């Protein structure tokens, strides 16, 4: 569908929010927690914050949570009984306050989870998720969405995108059928489109490089000392992957509780030294620089090659969260200049 534009008054936002809540959907929105601002279940609009560049964690957990039960089982003397994942129990979720970079992150995730084989748990969750984006009025030095094809007001991935105008009211862009369904909950709040230009109300994010240049360079410099130099201070935690909107690597584990149990999927990270370790002790990626190369190459070479989408949306979360200041924009800028 073509994008429809409306004006939504500042005072209408809480009303819309309440209508969505009243419709029975689960609403997750950015909330100030004791240490971070993150998406959480919110009781009312007063708990929702708009004071954040991006949330600490990405929005991906709505469709790819850090722990996912794949199925339940019961063991008995005669064998095993499996209770399959209840796809129909997945609730309708509205993600409120998603930044354009985050919203764009669902594309690469979806590409991974539907590559040849459809991961119905992920795709059903995504289908039942409505994304209400809020474009960025502020950016910080870690933001680089414009360098990887995004921008602070991009509609990609959102079902409705709100952009705050100089008056304090919002430009609402209704992008998809799911967005229309939200609009239909309170059509009276969506007024005639404002004349004010969207662009001038967006944060300025400088272009540092292009993703195509990064691809060209990393393909060329697979065997280069640059990985060693960059990865020197990396301590091999999984923070970057866990806050990333597009990282999808996971582990599968069984957890028992007496005779009952679950097979679960949990987040995993290519930066962990044990990620690729064989039982024999052999490790195909034995050093941190190989693991760092995998992380960058996966996002900027393997994914575009294999599933036609880049694995980075430029949100800069990994740079903000990294305990040793492995700044991805800085590293990529350096690679682009090689």
């Amino acid at each position, binding site marked *: 569908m073509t994008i429809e534009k409306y004006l939504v008054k500042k005072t209408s936002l809480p009303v819309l929010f309440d209508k969505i809540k009243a419709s029975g959907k689960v609403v997750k929105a950015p909330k100030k927690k004791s240490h971070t601002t993150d998406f959480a279940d919110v009781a009312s609009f007063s708990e929702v914050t708009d004071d954040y560049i991006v949330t600490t964690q990405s929005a991906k957990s709505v469709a790819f949570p850090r722990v996912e039960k794949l199925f339940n089982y019961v*063991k008995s003397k005669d064998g*095993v009984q499996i209770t399959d994942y209840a796809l129909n129990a997945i609730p309708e979720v509205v993600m409120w306050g998603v930044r354009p970079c985050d919203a764009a992150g669902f594309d690469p995730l979806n590409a991974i989870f539907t*590559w040849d084989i459809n991961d119905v748990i992920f795709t059903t969750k995504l289908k039942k998720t409505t994304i209400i984006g809020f474009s960025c009025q502020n950016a910080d030095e870690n933001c680089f969405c414009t360098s990887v094809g995004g921008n602070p007001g991009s509609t990609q991935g959102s079902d409705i995108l709100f952009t705050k105008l100089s008056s304090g009211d919002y430009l609402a862009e209704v992008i998809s059928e799911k967005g229309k369904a939200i609009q239909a909950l309170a059509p009276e709040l969506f007024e005639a489109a404002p004349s004010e230009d969207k662009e001038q109300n967006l944060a300025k994010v400088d272009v540092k490089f292009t993703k195509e240049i990064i691809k060209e360079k990393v393909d060329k410099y697979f065997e280069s000392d640059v990985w060693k130099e960059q990865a020197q201070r990396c301590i091999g935690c999984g923070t970057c992957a866990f806050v990333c909107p597009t990282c999808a690597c996971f*582990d599968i584990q*069984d957890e028992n509780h007496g005779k009952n149990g679950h*097979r679960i999927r949990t987040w995993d990270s290519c930066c962990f030294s044990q990620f690729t370790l064989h039982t*024999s002790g052999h490790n195909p990626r034995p050093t941190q620089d190989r693991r760092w190369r995998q992380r960058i190459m*996966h996002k900027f070479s*393997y994914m575009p090659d294999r599933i036609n989408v880049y694995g980075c949306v430029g949100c800069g979360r990994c740079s903000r969260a990294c305990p040793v200041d492995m700044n991805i924009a800085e590293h990529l800028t350096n690679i682009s200049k090689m």
Partner: protein
Amino acid sequence: MEEKNIYKPYLMRVEKITLEAPGVRTFRLKFENEEEANAFEFKAGQFGEYSVIGEGESTFCIASSPTRKGYIECTYREAGRVTSALAKCEEGDVVGFRGPYGNTFPIDEWKGKSLLFIAGGIALPPMRCVIWNALDTRENFKDVTILYGAKNVGDLVYKNELADWEARPDVKLITTVDPGGQTPDWKGEVGFVPAVLEKAAPSSENTVAIVCGPPIMIKFTLPVLEKLGFTEDTIYTTLENRMKCGFGKCGRCNCGPVYVCKDGPVFSYKQLKALPDEY
């Protein structure tokens, strides 16, 4: 696309357990559900995710031939959490299986050619499916030579089948053990696989070589094969990397852009040479 939980395994009953070597067992598995059994198809070279429910999943090739219907077999060595739990399974127990995944040996393309199988240690199982597949359709191939080596006599797997192959007039079997690994009554060769291969010097004419074994064996065997006249597209191997999902999502088995689970596990030497050193 079919709306099916791709992580849900088939339940399989352990029909027969064979102790092949210390810590190495072969399981014959039969589907619990007949419909699933009838719908199930695989080809030589593919792998699956085997699980002990409650302990987790582990990746092995399907060691039986697609020509033998009604069951699948896997051979594994007891090492980690899952294989240790498998080792505790008894006949009649139920285990999980997902698959088949991955590509296959291009056995149809090999019609009319001679086959040379070279395996070391626990790497015979991934080759056993294609060996039996070839032997069950023996008329399609010219000479079949199997060179199999292990550290010592005890470590040789499929001892009964080795005896079968030995007895068959249409198979040339060479077995070898590393120096010091022989027993007084050992009748096979003594020496490392590459050296034994060089001595046996099988003809490379119209022949496909299938090699599988520990990296060190592969490393020294390939030059010998090249010396014997094999070209890089007449040599095949099967790789293994750590996997969790088996279908290109969990993110750990790739060598550069190539996913062992999707693009492999079977690779020609030509493809192998192009891979980055991540296997």
